[in-house]
């Protein structure tokens, strides 16, 4: 199923008599036996006002098209969405709808915010085949409930996104990265925390135990970047190297490049940064990466490992990103939630998609 317009999509949804799997570019690893409902046909930027920092696009618009349009005006999607293709071995073109539905954000999330923070408005078709809009295209909007946030990261379970409006930001003139050698994860989180507690607006703070390096990114106008890097060096002390051309290092981090050529399950954990060293030790992973100053842990573990059982209770949540179908079915992609929250989630789903036709396997 590949509607070419919102009206066509409405007809299709209204006529559904069984569950479907919603597909944007098909790169985020949502698989299952249900027939795919692709939004790739709903494509194109419908409005772009650089002076108002807003862009509106149909859900199936390829990310490359959006990036190119923004690039031409010296702007960007500040939340730095990850490309899952390398990690998951998927093909296809990532779409803005997929990015939004999965609330995909990269290293800059820690400073600029997540995808959901940049999402100003949505149009979607709900489970009854109605077109719903929420939010708008202005930067501040509290008119009615914020279903925009609810739709971001709902993985298509509440509706099929058809159009999105996003806040965009100027692309920084320059960037520079400081690489700091550290002894272990604890020292790494301390260094990252010191940097993030500084007034120098660190826009990326990651640590790879394989090379023992903490990477700290500074972006902005050239003189300001140089100044802040100097100041950061002062407060951190010790040995460190300034990396001028670091864009590819951050792209690798964003896409978890380090795990691409290794087998095993991939988990993504959102934690309290200072808990990260202990949690990482408990995970006992084959390979591990820390982003967001320690607040995000990527772990590569042997197939079938029940990481949640191994960790027990902790502040945060663990998402299974890559696994074989059986493990995914068995452990579930998302962290099980407390009963009240579960019943709220179920209730909302039931209201938005009473026939339970959208991505029924996801999100409980």
């Amino acid at each position: 199923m590949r509607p070419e317009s919102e009206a066509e999509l409405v007809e299709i949804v209204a006529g559904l008599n069984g569950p479907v799997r919603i597909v944007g570019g098909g790169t985020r690893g949502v698989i299952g036996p249900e027939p795919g409902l692709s939004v790739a046909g709903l494509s194109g930027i419908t409005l772009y006002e650089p002076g108002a920092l807003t862009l509106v696009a149909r859900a199936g618009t390829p990310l490359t098209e959006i990036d190119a349009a923004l690039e031409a005006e010296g702007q960007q999607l500040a939340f730095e969405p990850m490309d899952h293709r390398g990690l998951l071995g998927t093909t296809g073109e990532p779409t803005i709808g997929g990015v939004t539905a999965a609330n995909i954000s990269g290293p800059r999330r820690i400073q600029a915010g997540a995808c959901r923070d940049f999402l100003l408005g949505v149009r979607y078709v709900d489970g009854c085949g109605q077109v719903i809009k929420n939010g708008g295209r202005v930067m501040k909007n509290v008119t009615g409930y914020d279903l925009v946030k609810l739709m971001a990261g709902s993985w298509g379970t509440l509706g099929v996104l058809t159009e999105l409006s996003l806040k965009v930001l100027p692309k920084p003139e320059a960037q520079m990265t400081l690489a700091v050698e550290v002894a272990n994860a604890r020292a790494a989180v301390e260094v990252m925390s010191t940097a993030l507690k500084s007034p120098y607006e660190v826009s990326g703070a990651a640590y790879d135990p394989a090379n023992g390096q903490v990477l700290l990114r500074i972006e902005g106008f050239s003189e300001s970047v140089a100044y802040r890097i100097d100041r950061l060096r002062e407060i951190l002390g010790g040995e460190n190297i300034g990396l001028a051309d670091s864009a590819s290092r951050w792209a690798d981090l964003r896409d978890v490049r380090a795990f691409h050529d290794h087998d095993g399950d991939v988990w993504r954990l959102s934690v309290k940064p200072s808990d990260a060293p202990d949690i990482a030790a408990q995970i006992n992973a084959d390979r591990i990466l820390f982003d967001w100053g320690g607040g995000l842990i990527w772990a590569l573990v042997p197939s079938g490992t029940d990481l949640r059982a191994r960790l027990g209770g902790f502040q945060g949540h663990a998402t299974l990103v890559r696994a074989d179908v059986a493990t995914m079915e068995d452990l579930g992609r998302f962290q099980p939630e407390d009963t009240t929250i579960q019943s709220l989630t179920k209730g909302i789903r039931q209201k938005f998609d009473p026939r339970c036709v959208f991505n029924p396997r996801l999100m409980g």
Partner: protein
Amino acid sequence: MELPQPNPKVLARKRALLTRLQQVLPEDAVIHDEAETRVYECDALTAYKCPPMLAVLPSTTQQVSDVLRICHEEGVPVVPRGAGTSLAGGALPTADCVILGVARMNEVLEVDYDNRFIKIQTGRTNLSVTGAVEEEDFFYAPDPSSQLACAIAGNIAMNSGGAHCLKYGVTTNNLMGVTMVMMDGNVVEIGGAYLDAGGLDLLGVICGSEGQLGVVTEATLRILRKPEGARPVLMGFDDNEVAGQCVSDIIKSGILPVAIEFMDRLCIQACENFAHAGYPDCEALLIVEVEGSEAEIDGQLSKIIEIAKRHNPVELRESQSADESARIWLGRKSAFGAMGQINDYMCLDGTIPVSSLPFVLRRISELSEDYGLPVGNVFHAGDGNMHPLILFDANKPGDLEKCEAFGAEILKLCVDAGGCLTGEHGVGIEKRDLMNHQYAPQDLESQMAVKDVFDPSWLLNPAKVFPLNVSETRRMAAE
């Protein structure tokens, strides 16, 4: 403004309810005398008022839970109230409701600089959250103009913004977790000291739900290190539209100031009168603030000033001292109150695309002539969040109605220009009946569906947000 008829069954049970509430709360936390409940009859929107049946002032999440459980069992509507500074009537009572004020819940529960968050009880005022972390040079970013007095509870309910959210975002972008009491008394924890939801982003929909989904008693908020410095520059223009054009050019240039604020002549005079900030004598004033080290500030300001000069400003002045900056902001943040020196006012809050600023400003001044009511404009220009203040005389019969009609026209104008009814104050009671202009019936239906899930009996903060006829079936069913 129409309020639903009070439920006679509820009114009849007042005494029994009072006894039950007195059993779970200290004596001075239950207000029932008519002379006293009247003080809670409105918030900062005084055009509409209605004394509540009772008011309670719990001090703990447990007490909030007890109150809600009892009210749920008794079928009594509850109107949560932070500091009562809503300009949209968000805390306006109904005659059969219990006002639940969280002002006494103002403790700091945890401060964690390494993980950059603070956990507080939500009755704490916005500014005193910053006050709690200031000694370590941290701050809580969202800064609504009422930040001195407004409570985080209300900030979360309305998803409040502020002057500096151009850079730092609004409440929802700085809220990491909440403890919320559901209408049935159940207590849930959502989010916490980590980023993003593991499932549906319930936190995202709770923030901005105007106290209709639950009562948030504790919140985990992101705190940030203060920049090394900040400096506002005052730019005076002899024409509103030129100032609007200047804003657009600054944003397009790639520089993102932390704040771009706009004031017109009427507001400039009122604010100057109170704050003695040295605002220039002009038709339109922009306050543009940038942050960083001295050199960084100089660098950014020189670029901004270059842009401004192309628009023939009548004055360009950088703040020379911390004291001057403080007075510049004191004036701006007191703008609404300061207009009170002139007359009563109704403050609107529509947002428009920045590119429509000149057109909308012109149209507002035309409407002002038509209605014969003066309008002052003061707003967050960087993100298009307007605040037209319509002046009227509350003691003059017919003036309020005229003002309401004028206000409705302005808000429709905002929506038609591609914007929305409210950027940061919330719908409350004030814009409730205009929701149909911005949203189609099914759009409202989908929002109400969320309330159905959180508060099936529709008891929390009734008669707000959704037009009464739209929510009628649900409210009736609940009764």
